[in-house]
């Protein structure tokens, strides 16, 4: 009994960790290209979830189809945001002021969602919502699996873009050393804008995945931003593999802790890990040179 319960928790943790990993990768991208802590990331996540819900309730189609609209839309929004807002800030105070700017964007999004869709809790009803199957005694809901596959596929796509394409090379060069990248002819401004767009696109994918199996409401994003920021600090600011590993470890840890502690207290694992990391290894467990100075 207990064994299967633990297995069940690990499976749930992995499924949740995949989504955390994708979203944390987006946050890491912003930090990498611009040294920006993007508070509004989770607000965009909830926005995408709302758009998926609205799409389904209006057209009756599967929420996955909303990705066709939201991903390009969010990519463009990210580029516009970087070019028009973030790049206007003074370089000397960029880290602090960008926090405030993205924080205010988060407030505007939350307020508008509440204004347009009201504060009522929303949930997408799908024909396969309740379906699940068993693997070695662990119960896996189909919607959670779809969300995980979606997140994993996007993470893989992100990895391939970063490693295999010319643009990815330029993006990595911008993250590692912007001045050197400019010297070898990378247009770092444009690349940073696209990097921002990519980060926001992860929020679009994550939001659709979230909308599949959870109840959404406008202020939900505060429950996401804390864990996500803890993940990127634990993983080392700026390191995408670090963020992915930290997301998996903490996601599984959260699911396991839910057994003895209940869902509310299990969330504290993120904050405990955050404080422990800053006390023991302020640059994070997988961070490199970049994290040490920030």
């Amino acid at each position, binding site marked *: 009994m207990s064994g299967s319960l633990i297995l069940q928790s690990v499976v749930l943790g992995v499924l949740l960790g995949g989504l955390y990993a994708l979203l944390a990768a987006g946050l890491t991208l912003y*930090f990498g290209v611009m*040294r920006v*802590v993007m*508070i509004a990331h989770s607000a965009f996540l909830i926005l995408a979830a709302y758009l998926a819900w609205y799409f389904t309730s209006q057209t009756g189609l599967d929420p996955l189809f909303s990705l066709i609209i939201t991903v390009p839309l969010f990519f463009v929004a990210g580029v516009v945001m970087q070019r028009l*807002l973030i790049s*206007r*800030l*003074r370089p000397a*105070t960029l*880290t*602090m*002021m960008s*926090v*405030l*700017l993205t*924080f*205010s*964007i*988060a*407030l*505007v999004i*939350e*307020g*508008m*969602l*509440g*204004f347009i869709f009201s*504060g009522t809790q929303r949930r997408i009803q799908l024909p396969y919502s309740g379906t699940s199957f068993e693997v070695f005694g662990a119960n896996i809901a189909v919607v959670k699996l779809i969300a995980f596959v979606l997140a994993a596929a996007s993470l893989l796509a992100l990895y391939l873009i970063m490693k295999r394409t010319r643009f990815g090379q330029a993006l990595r060069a911008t993250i590692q050393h912007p001045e050197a990248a400019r010297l070898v002819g990378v247009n770092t401004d444009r690349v940073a804008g696209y990097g921002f767009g990519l980060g926001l696109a992860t929020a679009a994918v994550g939001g659709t995945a979230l909308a599949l199996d959870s109840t959404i409401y*406008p202020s939900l994003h*505060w*429950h996401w*931003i*804390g864990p996500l*920021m*803890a993940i990127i*600090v634990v993983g080392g*600011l700026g390191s995408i593999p670090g963020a992915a590993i930290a997301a998996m470890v903490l996601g599984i840890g959260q699911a396991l802790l839910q057994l003895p502690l209940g869902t*509310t*207290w299990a*969330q*504290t694992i*993120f*904050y405990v890990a*955050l*404080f422990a990391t*800053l*006390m023991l290894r*302020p*640059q994070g467990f997988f961070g490199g040179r970049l*994290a*040490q*100075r*920030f």
Partner: protein
Amino acid sequence: MTASRTVNRGVKIVGLLALIALALAFPSLAPDPFILSVGVVIMSYAVLATSWNFVGGFTGYISLGHAAYSGLGGYATALLILDAGLNPWVAMLLGAVGVALLAVPIGIASLRVRGASFVIVSIALVLIMLLAFQSWGSVTGGSNGLRVPRPFGPEVLRPEQHERFFYLHLALLAIALFTWWAIDRSRFGIGLKAIREDEDKAEALGVPTFSYKLAVFVVSAFFTALGGGLYALWFGFLDPIFQFSILVGSYMVLMSLLGGIRSLFGPLLGAVIVGYALEFFKAQYGDTQFHLVALGLLLALVVLFMPDGIIPAVGQLVARFRPQAASIREQTQAELAAQRRGEASEPDRDDAMAVSGEEARR
């Protein structure tokens, strides 16, 4: 030059006296208890924003989570009165000392690395406190809230309560402002401002950056907790959702930034403007989600177009109509050469004087 400085000083003193007189007279000027209670709320915001400005203004580290300290101050005060049976004012002070002690490990964790992690920890702290105080119902009352006993007996009526708490908040604000002013003029303050301008250079010049940041962080937490405790005593009721709200923390940031984080009275000015606007908005439109949008837009506008705040902006405007006081030397190369020649010939004159002196002695 000295004359204009004395005039300047006179204007400042007169302005300060006028400000104090206005603040002291406010309760008798207020037409009804509601306006008076709005005044207390604005004063409370001013205390919190000024306390926030110890960290934000001196070091440039923006904390979005100062609501954690005000909330903890409020809860500590309430719990010390309820469970330990302490005098309310002793409880408030002890609570603030406790919060300041708690701020030490938090500061050590969050100030070790630059900027980004500080902000992340500050937000995480509010979220964790909200979680803890909502779930730990047996001690904190959980989501049902906690009733704080009133420090004055039942014979003191509502309007009189408001008036007393207005003066109490004013006194606390005066202490906080005085402390800020004293630090501003001290060696400690100069070190902190050096950290704000360039932390690497400050460290290279021998400023003990980490302990300075930690010290001012603890001072800030202490004053914020006092403000939270005093508010709790006045309001009489604590609910985790409002005490540990990230919005309260962002109000403090917005008020300070709007007024000007580098000026002594910046947070106070911001608190008066934003506090009044918030109360007006609430009275006019009720509690809709729209105040979030308004707050967000206002914060974005301030960050994008006026990151230095109103007071420096107005100061620059005034300075434009004054005689130019440029920091650049306005001298032509020829004038400079002439001056150098003058300086070069000076030692001769000194020698001559020394010679004549010797002659005189003989």
